[in-house]
């Protein structure tokens, strides 16, 4: 956690299982992410999104951030995607295949995505290609240290943002009810 420019930690041996797992998850996530925007069925898009978000959670597990991983599963898979599905079903959106999901700006979108991919890919590879990512040995095995660190950050260092988020949720709730209700 010392940043890019600090001295690199002493290299740990190449962790083959973790790297293979990462590669598999990453490929699945990329395929699913492409399907989210190319599928012509809204419900399928939501389900593909579930795979992307789930893969993200698995990556957190690989990094031994169990608490973050579980939060990711509960909040994103359990709540947000389900909310999407409810939203699709409760509104009068078509459940099956619909051809008007596409529009004329699709090639523009493809071009912008490709440019962004090249720019971001180039910068990341150029900057980090010499760094070795180690999935590291478990810190303080069995003590749940990372979750404790997280709790300390939230309730000590980030206390103000944490409290502010609760006002944010209250405001969002009130505003959404006013805008959505029938007068």
């Amino acid at each position, binding site marked *: *956690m*010392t*940043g*890019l*420019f*600090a001295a690199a930690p002493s290299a740990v041996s190449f962790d083959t299982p973790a790297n293979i797992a990462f590669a598999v998850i990453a490929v699945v996530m990329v395929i699913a992410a492409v399907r989210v925007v190319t599928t012509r069925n809204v419900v399928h898009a939501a389900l593909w999104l579930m795979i992307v978000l789930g893969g993200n959670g698995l990556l957190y597990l690989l990094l031994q951030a169990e608490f973050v991983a579980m939060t990711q599963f509960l909040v994103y898979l359990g709540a947000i995607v389900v909310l999407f599905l409810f939203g699709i079903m409760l509104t009068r959106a078509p459940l099956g295949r619909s051809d008007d999901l596409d529009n004329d700006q699709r090639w523009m979108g493809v071009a912008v995505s490709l440019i962004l991919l090249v*720019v*971001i890919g*180039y*910068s*990341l590879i*150029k*900057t*980090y290609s010499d760094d070795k990512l180690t999935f590291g040995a478990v810190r303080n095995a069995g*003590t749940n240290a990372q979750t*404790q660190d997280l*709790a*300390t950050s939230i*309730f*000590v*260092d*980030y*206390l*103000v*943002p944490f*409290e*502010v*988020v609760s*006002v*944010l949720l*209250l*405001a*969002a709730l*009130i*505003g*959404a009810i*006013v*805008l959505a209700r029938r*007068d």
Partner: protein
Amino acid sequence: MSLAAQLVAQVGAPVSFRGPTIDYHALAPEIVLSAAVVVLVLLDSIKLERAKAYMPVVTNLALLGALIPLLTLAYDGGTRALFGGSYVVGPMPLMLKAMFIVTTYVVVLLSTNYMAEGDYWESEYYTLLVSSLLGMVVMASSRDLIGIFVALELLSIPAYMLASWRKGDVRSNEAGLKYFLMGVFASAVLLYGMSLVYGLGGSTRLEDIGRVLADAPTDGVPVVTLALVFVVIGFAFKVSAVPFHVWAPDTYEGAPTPVTTFLAVASKAAGFVALISLVFYAFLPRADIIEPLFFVLAIGSMTVGNLAALRQTNVVRMLAYSGIAHAGFMLAPFVVAGSNPFRSMQSIVVYLVIYAAMNLGAFACVIAMARQTRSAELKDLAGVVRSMPGLAWCMVLFLASLIGMPPLGGWYAKFGVFKVVVGAETGLGYATAIIMAINTAIAAYYYLNVAKTMIFDDPPEGAPVRAPRTPPSLAAAIAISLVATFAFGILPGLLTNVTSYGPLALGG
């Protein structure tokens, strides 16, 4: 060992959580505002029709209540760094907080009659207004990526909903939706940039990030450029800088006018406050990236904003485009941020405060006049000086201040920016100054055109000779803005004295 003892041993021993020491005095304004949000929600659940009329009064009392700890903190002096320096309460944050609170106070005065006479959800309106204000107040103190992001969301999300508060009107719905979609897109860009910044700096605290960036090699790390550009672009949307301004005119025109005032003054200022924190506390070591980027944003905003404002026939839309142009002026000192950080920061803050005062006044006059004309089209305002002489002349004063005529506040704001930009003696600085001078002339034309239409043109057929009385809350709003505009113009020392105690001056 009994089971209970085992449990106690397991749960109690290794987990020794020590809560942070909290400086409640420094956080008092935020606490008062949070309490105000809760009180407003509870007041609404009391089903008394009478309670409704007191909503604006309760809101304004709460805002005044939040000003009290600001005064005591200012009296105490000094800079308080909370939570390891991620939340700073010093003279400059205090002044910005005061500006946000007073601005919201005036917006509530503007809303009182507007909300009561239209078919709106009143108490929810004030709740959202105060929660958005809370986000701005937190923004003024945040010196941490997470704090800045959370504050940005808290100030934006209620604003998205307030923009579409006129539920029955398609244009208001469009305003809210456009603002929301653009806003979340900008948030996504910003968040990606912030994640890269965190990866580079290894900390969310701006101070630490600045230190890492200063030590970093300048070649061979394109990620630094990428991260900084993404973060700045994220806020360029918020402050409606060209080319990220397309949402602003439609949103400003469609939203209820008091909300437009709030967006154009407070919300924009909050975006600038975030930019100031990020640039001057973290990104300054890489001025070579920041300066050209801001050069493009600044000259683009002032030129495009002014040229578009020339062609507007609606005063609110014209003020929206002129707001884009003013954003360009406020971005200009960032172009020379590396040469003289302290002076550039000071000139931006001074511009922000003065712009808030005069723009609030201009919007207040438009709202007051539109009560009679029922529209903000320029042709309907022709000759209003006959029916509403007081309002028309006040409007002329605010327009003169927006042009930058002494002794009104606007001249000092513009003068400060010019002085900093030229004083840096860099090529980009001189180029910015020349473009600023041309734009000041263009701006004068369309502001004077509005003044001319109001004073010299003949009123349209069937316009009433005598206007209804301006409600006291609107009159108070105009009076507050007018006093502030004059005071800052005649005694600019009021602002510069406070800003010169900024954390930069203290070596923070």
